[in-house]
């Protein structure tokens, strides 16, 4: 079993020093997501402004994979237009469901490419997706608030 492909150094680095962790103001929406199987939890806030993800802040409890994924996700989406952020989510989701068959695009996923190995461990895919699911959920709620500006 190729453990090192799961626990890439980049993942362990993010795990030990998660980026953008902690809950911050301002935010338009806050969600709480749980992985019922294992109990991993994340509280996540999104601050949208004019269709751009201005901030993602979170308080997460979970394994190295889920913690590192939250950190990488925040890196990837903060200060990006929401459409780009959601496209990255799609790319990450596709990577996770690939069972190791996809070569990830570093231009799109940056440090996220380190998770390619996770896709070969089906039981861990949920860990890697928890924060992304929370982000998507929070963003769509925030979007409702942000909507007038976006239309403008």
């Amino acid at each position, binding site marked *: 079993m190729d453990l090192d492909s799961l626990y890439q150094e980049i993942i362990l680095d993010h795990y030990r020093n998660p980026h953008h962790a902690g809950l911050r103001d301002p935010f338009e929406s806050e969600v709480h997501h*749980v992985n*019922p*199987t*294992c*109990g991993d*939890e994340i509280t996540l806030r999104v601050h949208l402004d004019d269709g751009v993800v201005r901030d993602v802040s979170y308080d997460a409890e979970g394994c190295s994979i889920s913690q590192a994924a939250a950190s990488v996700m925040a890196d990837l989406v903060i200060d990006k237009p929401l459409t780009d952020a959601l496209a990255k989510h799609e790319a990450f989701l596709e990577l996770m469901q690939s069972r190791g068959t996809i070569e990830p695009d570093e231009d799109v996923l940056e440090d996220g490419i380190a998770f390619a190995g996770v896709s070969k461990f*089906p*039981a861990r895919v949920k860990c890697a997706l928890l924060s992304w699911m929370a982000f998507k959920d929070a963003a769509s709620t925030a979007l409702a608030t942000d909507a007038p500006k976006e239309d403008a």
Partner: protein
Amino acid sequence: MTHDLDGLLPGLDVIRKDFPILERRLADDLPLVYLDSANTSQKPQVVIDSMVDHLERHNANVARAMHQLGAEANEAFESARDTVARFVNAPSRDEVIFTKNASEALNLVANTLAWADGPLGVGEGDRVVITEMEHHSNIVPWQLLTQRKGAELRWFGLTDDGHLDLSNIDELITERTKVVALTWVSNMLGTINPVAEIARRAHEVGALVVVDASQAAPQLRVDVQAVGADFLAFTGHKVTGPTGIGVLWGRHELLAQLPPFLGGGEMIETVAMERSTYAAPPHRFEAGTPPIAEAVGLATALDYLAEIGLDAIHRHEQALTGHLLGGLADIPGVTVLGPLDTTERGGAVAFEIEGVHPHDVAQLLDSRGIAVRAGHHCAKPAHKRFGVQSSTRASSYLYTTPSEVDALLEGIIATQDYFKVR
């Protein structure tokens, strides 16, 4: 008697070899003539083997286990859900709930509707409509629901030739009707009901449609979208699968609104001592360790049936049923309960022999190695409707041969002789 009926499954001999029990010898070294498949079906070797392989090589608990065996067991269990979803043409795999049998599936719907707040809840003054040909498992849950909630239970009656009497449908299905629950195929009369048409009428008044497909799933192509059901139940042991497992399919939008059924492991999102939140469907409705090896066996069974082809199985059943009905018509003193036209019925045929009680019929047939069912077949009201307390029922399946039907016909004549009613 002829053995080359039109519509028989090609390779019937080979199919029979799939079922080890068909080689059983009974008392007096008689071969088994199993004509009780509507009660429970026999299991092909491949179903048994898949469960054995699971237990010997992949056994672990699901959902919770992180290790390799756990991943294998989980994969096997969840892919069984995919198989069921395909089998009933469900729009989404998350609409497939594993229960312990069809009865639990029907009770699940009745109980969650009793507990539901909001528009789905069944309460005082609401009406639930069933039919007089239901299996007890599609009667008692609705009696309990309506009694507990002060709602009203009504039902479609039956015509003399064993069909639903739809003449008062406008009186039964009204704005007050919240649920219409009915069987697709009767386990006693064999009648195939016009479920899609009734579902359409029920939906016009906003009622939910619950279809008991326990007898349909073994022999008809089940397409939940075509039939227009909101919920549909069937049971593993009648589709060549194991006991201990049943299926409830429900429209996701409805499942998402329903409260939990049983509480416990797997069905939760988070638990604190004060209160809990619940998982999304289907897990919300699957408390505790599910029937894992049974799901593996069921998936193998459904694949087995799909490979032979449900349309081909249905034709086979019709051919045999036609042969049986023809033979019964030729025996004086025998009366069939239910439709006589094979295009309107499934492969269960209930009949009476004048002057011989069904138990005694079954006993005589059993002494010749022929297994049929005698009694009320969990359909007392339908028996009462036809003025009988019980009946004898012969039911074929994909492994049944015309010569087995012939053996039954001869056995009936021998029964009449034994009891001197001929």
